[in-house]
Structure formats: C-alpha cells, structure tokens
C-alpha cells in the first residue's frame, strides 16, 4: 500500500538581487532546489534518493515531511493530501512521519539522558497513560534498536555513547511514536565504517520486517545498492533515473547514473566498468539551470537536441516497478508511444524559464 506519494514537487527559493540588482532592474534569481519531482514510497519498502550535494535531496525530504512548504506540487500521506495543511493540523500527523538526521553527535540534546530524549515525543503527543507506561515504551524502543540492556543505556548521556549508539538512540526516539514513514537523511555518513552496516541493517529490519516505509537520502551509491529496494537518482532538482536497485545498477540508462557508478571504488581493484571515465566539471548553480537537458553541459554523449528539449522521465523497461530514465538517448520501452513521451515532457516542466 502506498504510504507516501509525491507529484510534481517544486521548491523554489527567492534570492535577493541586492541594491545594484534593484537599481538595474535585474530579475531576482530563483533557486530551483526541487524542480518537479515525483515518486512514491510504500510499506515494507526502502527508497534511496541518491545524489550529490546541491541536487535537492535534503530539501525534498524536508518538504515531503512538510517541514518546508512546497512551491508547487502535491504530497499525499496515507492517501490524505497534506500539501496545504497548516502546521497545527500537521502536528498529529507528525507521529506517523519521523525523521532521522545525519549528525548523531548533534541530534540529541547533550543535557538530557538518552531515556529522557527518547521519551520526549511521548510527552509531546500525549502517548502513554502514566509515567511508568511511557517508561516501558522507551525501554522497548531502546531494545528494538539493540541498545541493550535498555535500562543502562537509558540512563546514559549522549557524550557517553559512540556515534553508532547515538544514531540508534535517535532512531529509538523516532520509533516510540510508532511511525509508518521514516525519512533517514544520510543516516550513516558521519559514522565510522564499522558501525554503518549495523545501523543500516536496523533500518532494513524496521522496513522489511516491521513494515515501515523508509525514504533514505544518501550520496553513497554503494550503500543504496546494498540496502535499498528502489533507487531514484537526483540531479539539480530533478529525478534522472528510477527503478529497482538491482536494475538501475545493472543497466544504468542515464549518463549521470553511469558517471556515479564509474567513480564508486570497487572492492576488487581493477573491476571498473567498461568505458569508465571520471565526469568533468561541477554541479552548476541551482539558480542558473542550463536550458534543455540540465545535464547536457557535463554529459559525455550529449547531442544537439539535448540543448533544446528538456527530457522527462520515460519508461525504459516496464514491469511492476518500471525502470525510468530522463534521457533522450535512452531506449524507450516497447509499447510506449512517442506521443506519450512528448506529453510527459510538456507537463513536467511548468513555468520553466
């Protein structure tokens, strides 16, 4: 069952044009952090949103949770449209949508014991009839994240725990309210390698065994390859490729995905992909998005039409989870007509400058 559905999400920021800009009547720059993103997350499923910094993945995550207001587009949670809801109406929903942040060293208030921090959401949402009942929920959550014995860890301060343990505590604090959707923003990138798998396995269990939907934001394609069910690759505010993890990695259809794969070091040195090359250039400013395909300036296979047409995601291989790519040079799935392609190209670019 679909838990979260995002349709055509946009988040734009108005830059300031300064005094000189005002005097010369220059238009204010618009930073298109998220520029038309659509995806869904179902129960028992982990979707990895993969991209480099500046691609808009964190902004997407925050907008989806309505910590930010979208500039355009729609967000549905459990079938209910939450795009326009006010913060007051969203508060009860916050129980069901939780977030785990990247920095475990800052995520917990250093003044409070772990047990108190984990128990805070219960106080906020009025869960648990008595102090004892709340305590039990806290203990159960700590056990669930393998901070065992829970009574011992509950009495500790954050500075007495390692990074991995702190991140588990942060996850426990998210679990106490029994969320259905968990957004994990780079959950392990600040942890030592030896602790990452443990935390990721925990997230995997919560997802596949306990039925939560997990939206994982990461820049690490190898991490997504090993733990996520589906992958969505993001570049400069748009999704450029989506599909099951296995398929996206086995046959990447978008040159950016291929570029990311090329630079991911392999365990077996020398096992590089055929034709592997390091992509040149850097990600352009989100305030000055290139015309046509936004990846064109760096694309190794760009052609003339790429400067004119802004490709939308089209199906490359149909299936229960379709493999889609936003590249004019990627093959189209048999049965998808050319008209469908053009139509989607138009609808997905509202108000493009």
């Amino acid at each position: 069952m679909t838990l979260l559905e995002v349709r055509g999400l946009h988040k734009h920021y108005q830059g300031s044009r300064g005094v000189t800009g005002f005097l010369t009547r220059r238009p204010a720059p618009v930073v298109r952090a998220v520029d038309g993103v659509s995806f869904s997350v179902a129960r028992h499923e982990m979707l990895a949103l993969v991209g480099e910094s500046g691609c808009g993945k964190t902004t997407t995550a925050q907008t989806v949770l309505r910590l930010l207001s979208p500039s355009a587009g729609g967000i549905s949670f459990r079938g209910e449209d939450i795009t326009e809801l006010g913060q007051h109406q969203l508060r009860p929903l916050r129980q069901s949508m939780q977030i785990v942040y990247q920095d475990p060293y800052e995520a917990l208030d250093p003044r409070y014991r772990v047990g108190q921090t984990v128990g805070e959401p219960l106080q906020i949402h009025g869960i648990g009839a008595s102090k004892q009942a709340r305590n039990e929920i806290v203990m159960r959550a700590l056990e669930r994240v393998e901070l065992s014995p829970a009574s011992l860890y509950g009495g500790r301060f954050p500075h007495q725990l390692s990074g991995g343990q702190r991140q588990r505590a942060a996850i426990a604090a998210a679990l106490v309210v029994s969320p259905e959707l968990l957004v994990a923003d780079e959950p392990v990138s600040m942890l030592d390698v030896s602790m990452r798998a443990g935390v990721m396995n925990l997230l995997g269990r919560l997802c596949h065994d306990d039925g939560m939907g997990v939206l994982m934001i990461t820049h690490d394609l190898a991490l997504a390859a090993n733990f996520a069910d589906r992958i969505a690759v993001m570049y400069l505010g748009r999704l450029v490729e989506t599909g099951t993890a296995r398929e996206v990695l086995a046959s990447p259809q978008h040159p950016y995905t291929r570029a990311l794969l090329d630079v991911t070091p392999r365990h077996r040195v020398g096992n590089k992909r055929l034709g592997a090359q390091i992509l040149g250039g850097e990600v352009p400013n989100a305030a000055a998005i290139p015309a046509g395909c936004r990846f064109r300036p760096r694309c190794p296979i760009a052609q003339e039409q790429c400067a004119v047409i802004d490709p939308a995601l089209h199906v490359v291989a149909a299936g229960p989870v379709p493999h889609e790519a936003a590249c004019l040079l990627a093959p189209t799935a048999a049965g998808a007509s050319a008209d469908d392609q053009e139509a989607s190209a138009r609808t997905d670019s509202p108000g493009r400058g």
Partner: protein
Amino acid sequence: MLSAQPALPVAEQDAAADLSPSPLRELWGSVRGSPSGMTGLIVLVILILLAIAAPLVAPYPPNTQVGAPFSPPSVHHLLGLDDGGYDVLSLLIYGLRVSLLVGFAATFIASVVGTLIGVVAGYFGGLVDSILMRITDYFLVVPLLPLMIVVADLWGSSLVHIIVVIGALSWTMTAIVIRAQARTLRERVFIRRSQALGASDVRVITRHLLPQVMPLVVANTVLNISYAIFTETALSFLGLGDPVQVSLGTMIEHAFLRAAISAGAWWAVIPPGALVAIIVVACSLLGRTIEDSLNPRLRTAYLSVRSFRMRSAEQARARARQARTQSGGGDVDSPS
C-alpha cells in the same frame, strides 16, 4: 567470546562523565579554573556579604553626626568623617548596599526583558523579529541623562525611578546579543529535531534553547551589573540620585558640593570612587572570563608550529610500565 546477538559493550561507568553536561556547570568549571575570574568572583561575593551585613559591620550608624566635619582618619574613624560629621566607613558600607541594590535590580530587569525579547526574536525570525528589533532600536537611541532628568523633574528622583530608567535602557544590548545566539542555536540539529517531532515552540524554547543560552545570559548580566552600578554612581553624582538614600555616588556628590577637596579631606572623595572602581573591575574580570569560556575560537589554534616535547625511548618504556601497573593491568574489556 562474542554472543550471537551483538551485545554492544557499555561505556565505562565514569563518575565524572555521569553528570549532565549542563552549560552552566561547564561555565562554573571554567571560571573556577581561571585566576582572574575567581578573583573577580571572590571580590564580588565579599562585597555582597558586606553589604547584606551592613548593620552588623558598620561601626557607626550612617546618618548620625559623630564628630566634627572633615575630621581626618583616626583609630576610631578609619576613614575619617565627611562634611556632615558622619563616619565615612559606615557611610561607605551602607552606600555600597544601595549601589549594589540598584545595580542588581536594574540588571535583573534588563536581563529578563532582554533575554525574553532576544530569544523570541531570534527563534521566530521573520515579522516578529523585525518588530522586536525595531522596538529595540528605538530604546537603543534614547539618551540616558535627558531621560533621567525628565523623570526626576516629573516624578521626583527615587531609587525606584533610577532602577527603572537604567533597566529600561540597558536591556537593549542584552536583547541584541541573545538574539544572535538564539539564531545560531535555532539551527542546531537537536532543536530542529524537536520541532520535527511536533514539539510546541514553547517547549523547544524552554527545554532546549534556553539552557544553551544561559551562559551568555550570565556573562551579559555580570557585565551589565558593572554598567548599572557605574551609571547609578554617575547619575547620583549629577544630583539626580535619591536625596534620602546614600549611595556611593551621592557620597562623591556631597564631597564635591561641600568642597571636600579644597578642605583637603581626600578621605571623603577617594574611598567611594575607589570602591566603585573595584566593583567595576571585579565584574569585568568575571564577565570576561565567562565570555572567553563561551567562545572556543578565542583559544589558540591547534595547528600552530610550536615545539612539542620529546621523550626518549627508555622514558617511554618506563612510562608504559608505570601506566600499566597504575591502571591495574589496563582493562581492555571496558571500551568507551
């Protein structure tokens, strides 16, 4: 060796580490470690105790003539007598009381109002921030002396009036400083997390933001106290002080008006001034120490080219042996 379920080894039970890392406790730790900070603190504490115990400590009652005016210091009157024949030492102690009272009271008002406005403006931002900051700007430009003159003219000058005027004008700096801090703290992850959980703003501010802001409030308060006391002294010297109460400022005022200097009676002029100076310096030492401890960037950088020490290999081995026997064999089973 390891069970199938990865039981994560527990951090070693460290007594010191088991205390809540309260920012105020850390502050106290750094003050305790600083000689200048402790000096300032001790001096202030002594003066406060002196002021509280004034009736017990002062040798003579203040506004009572006990001898000829401008009598020089003697065994009975360690600091001599002033223009009215009152014992200067007793006056000093009672005057200290009044000055400290004004200082603390005015600063209390300034700190409370300033912190409140600063936190609200910094945390909420946007329109609330703009409005509060414009109000702050307005109060910032009101000049102290003319205001006090007007107040004294309209409602008379009393201690309460002075306290209110000083308090009403000195909260602005506190507000500005606290607002800046609140704006930075607002971005810290554990605060954003609480918001994402659905915590109300009141909860986030009181439980998470305010404790982090407290050390800066303390530093600001201490420095404000010295400002308030000095300002009261100046106002009293200019004749705007409470005519009934004697404060350190009024002591200097009387000495000045009654030509104590031409009478050669330095003991009527210098002691009150010196005492004010001591209070200001003590507050500054303490306040500066607190400020320094808040700003880790003021400490010297890590990567500077300074000499590290050398140790020979034999010394190293000896040290290792010593450390091993000391820690009772070094418990490898309790990693942190």
